[in-house]
């Protein structure tokens, strides 16, 4: 069981002693200790978290169905189980100013930044009004408006790219930060460490969010990684890191806020290892023989990120079953509309083959 209750292994917030004291001790974030249990959410926060996570869950389920109907093709990597990570991080940043970049398991990130479900679904079906006019597909979508920079198919490539986005922030002397998401498998690519070094050397405002869902395709973390505590992967570069229960959105948001404050204040990069889990196969038809059904079932029943919020809302009397059903119905409506749109939108015009190759 790798999803930690709170911090595992490494120290919570970067302790002052881990970095040259002269630089770090003055910063309030540097010495802030994470509380043992995450701060409670307000009613509004819990309701917002519930809605946002449910939107991703239902959207992904619909995408899975549409793949089954032959409407979506190629690679389609679902985010089901990991919703609290992007939604929690998004609550900690300034949407539209702070940048977000990730790999190919990207539908959740796009919805969390506020990208339109219709445009995302229409890209999945390869249609004209998809975010990339049908030319990108599931793995390649972008939105300047939401400062979402993709959507990348080469494992690890987004890590250097995200570091470059942060470089641009520092260059322009603004205080935006960059969320750079990548997987436990991607964390073994060489360019990750080349990026870490430059990011710390030049104090770039980038948060490296390692979504540790315990598998890279069929390879478990223990079979691929000499150091399985990913929060420590920046230690030799002096980059602070922490392990976060990525199934608890409160813990995600809290750690996210700590990391954002650290980066905005000009202290350089920060690593968050989000301990999470994907319920579905790596992609649509992964046999998933590398893990037991029990393991998946245990995560679903004991750690589901959405269920945790649901139970909280009900226990605290902040919402009734009826209220939640209403939210569910609203979300289904958004998702169904996106699916209808994505099926009825025409394919791109043939002339699009030759556009956007060079400016």
């Amino acid at each position, binding site marked *: 069981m790798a999803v930690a209750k709170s911090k595992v292994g490494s120290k919570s917030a970067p302790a002052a002693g881990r970095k040259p004291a002269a630089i770090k001790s003055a910063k309030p974030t540097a010495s802030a200790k994470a509380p043992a249990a995450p701060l409670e959410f307000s009613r509004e926060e819990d309701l917002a978290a519930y809605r946002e996570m449910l939107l991703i869950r239902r959207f992904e389920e619909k995408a899975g169905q549409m793949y089954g109907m032959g409407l979506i093709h190629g690679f389609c990597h679902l985010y089901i189980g990991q919703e609290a990570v992007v939604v929690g991080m998004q609550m900690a940043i300034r949407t539209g100013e702070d940048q977000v970049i990730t790999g190919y398991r990207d539908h959740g990130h796009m919805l969390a930044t506020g990208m339109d479900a219709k445009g995302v679904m229409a890209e999945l079906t390869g249609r004209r009004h998809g975010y990339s006019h049908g030319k990108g597909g599931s793995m390649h979508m972008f939105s300047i408006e939401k400062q979402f920079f993709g959507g990348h198919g080469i494992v690890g490539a987004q890590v250097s790219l995200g570091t470059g986005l942060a470089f641009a922030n520092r260059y322009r002397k603004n205080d935006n930060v960059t969320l750079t998401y990548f997987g436990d498998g991607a964390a073994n690519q*060489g360019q990750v460490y080349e990026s870490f070094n430059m990011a710390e050397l030049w104090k770039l405002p980038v948060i490296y969010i390692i979504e540790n869902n315990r598998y890279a395709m069929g390879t478990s973390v223990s*079979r691929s990684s000499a150091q399985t505590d990913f929060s420590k992967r920046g230690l030799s570069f002096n980059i602070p890191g922490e392990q976060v229960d990525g199934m608890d959105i409160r813990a995600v948001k809290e750690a996210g806020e700590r990391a954002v404050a650290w980066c905005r204040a000009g202290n350089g990069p920060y690593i968050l290892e989000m301990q999470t889990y994907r319920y579905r196969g790596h992609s649509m038809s992964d046999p998933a023989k590398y893990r037991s059904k029990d393991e998946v079932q245990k995560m679903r029943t004991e750690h589901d990120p959405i269920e945790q919020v649901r139970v909280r809302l009900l226990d605290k009397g902040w919402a009734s079953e009826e209220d939640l059903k209403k939210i569910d119905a609203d979300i289904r409506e958004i998702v169904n509309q996106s699916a209808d749109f994505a099926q009825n939108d025409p394919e*791109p015009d043939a002339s699009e*083959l030759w556009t956007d190759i060079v400016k």
Partner: protein
Amino acid sequence: MPIDILMPALSPTMEEGTLSKWLKKEGDTVKSGDVIAEIETDKATMEVEAIDEGTIAKLLIPEGTENVKVNTPIAIIAADGEDATAAAAAPAPAKDVSGVHEAAKNGSGESGSAPAVAAAAPAAPVSVVVASDPAIPAGTEFVSMTVREALRDAMAEEMRRDGDVFIIGEEVAEYQGAYKITQGLLQEFSAERVIDTPITEHGFAGLATGAALAGLKPIVEFMTFNFAMQAIDQIINSAAKTLYMSGGQLGASIVFRGPNGAAARVGAQHSQDYTSWYSHIPGLKVVAPFTAADAKGLLKAAIRDPNPVIFLENEILYGHSFDVPKLDDFVLPIGKARIHKTGKDVTIVSFGIGMTYAIKAIDELAAQGIDVELIDLRTIRPMDIETVIESVKKTGRCVTVEEGWPQNSIGSDIASQLMEKAFDYLDAPVLKVTGKDVPMPYAANLEKLALPSVADVIAAVKAVTYR
């Protein structure tokens, strides 16, 4: 509103399947995520998950039913609060397909999806003329096997023969290969010789090259050649050049292999043909087989070759079946083209998956009275240009076919060599059929337009024959 659950497709080519088992019965309540049924296709057992909540109002297809067409309603779910009996009676207007979990037994693929297409793709019927290959003894038995099986057998045979041969790459061992090319090798040769790596292409390509410099004979599997771009520095600067730089003291007997080129609907970063990239490099050999027999014979040769060999496979061809000679040790020469069909009017030169377009075109062209000689290059470097020249001396015309981009393509090189070495024999300019000069788009219609087509081949042949 009652909801129809439809028979799901597990791949774009799945048309029907067997509903092997219902895990819920009428009247049972289901919630999103519950496994409700198991479905079998020719290659996989899938679990069907409910997406909607409610009560199973009716099971429309009994378990054990075979050949259930995709998108056929298989059950009706009454939503919460609905009367299940009424729902079963009423026609269900809302269509819904359940979530699908495949337990693929075969041909799974990088991300599991497209390869299922490859495995399902029908085998092209071909009559193979083994022109320039070592004589196959009369009476040799041929067995039909897929390219996938041929590649696996080639590696297994060479690993049995030589203890220095080992295979290394992502998902090659426990997962049995992302595209199931290494199926069974871990079980036969153990984890010492079948080695799963982290996702670190530059690192393991360099490591394997180092092991080769020390005398071992690695087979490096790239999950696809798109990811070998991470490693290309080690392939070119270390593997290809060391023999020369060391004045012949050190070389690397190493094979870099994996699927190359476009698969199906996987977009620009996963659909690129690298044949001409590697063929540019002195110090490398580059092999790109089409048939299963060539895949087997040439992979065995590549493993024995003392040089670095780039072995370019194709995901769509993995599931195609061909006749392979049943010989204990079937090794083909690297650097020899194969005349797939003799003819007198025009020469088509192709390789790898390009052959599929050419083969379809020659039948149509024959119907129009044009007799094509079709050459399968098989090895791209060193290229058997002599065989091409001999053919062009006879036909006076040449068309090349490949999926890669036009500029600096294999076709460009053949055209230039023919101009230098066979100019006097040419009755028409050499024409290239290539992929379009664009990154691969995802949309179905655009992807089709981006790839070469049989019509492109026919048009080019007609142009060079002035028809």
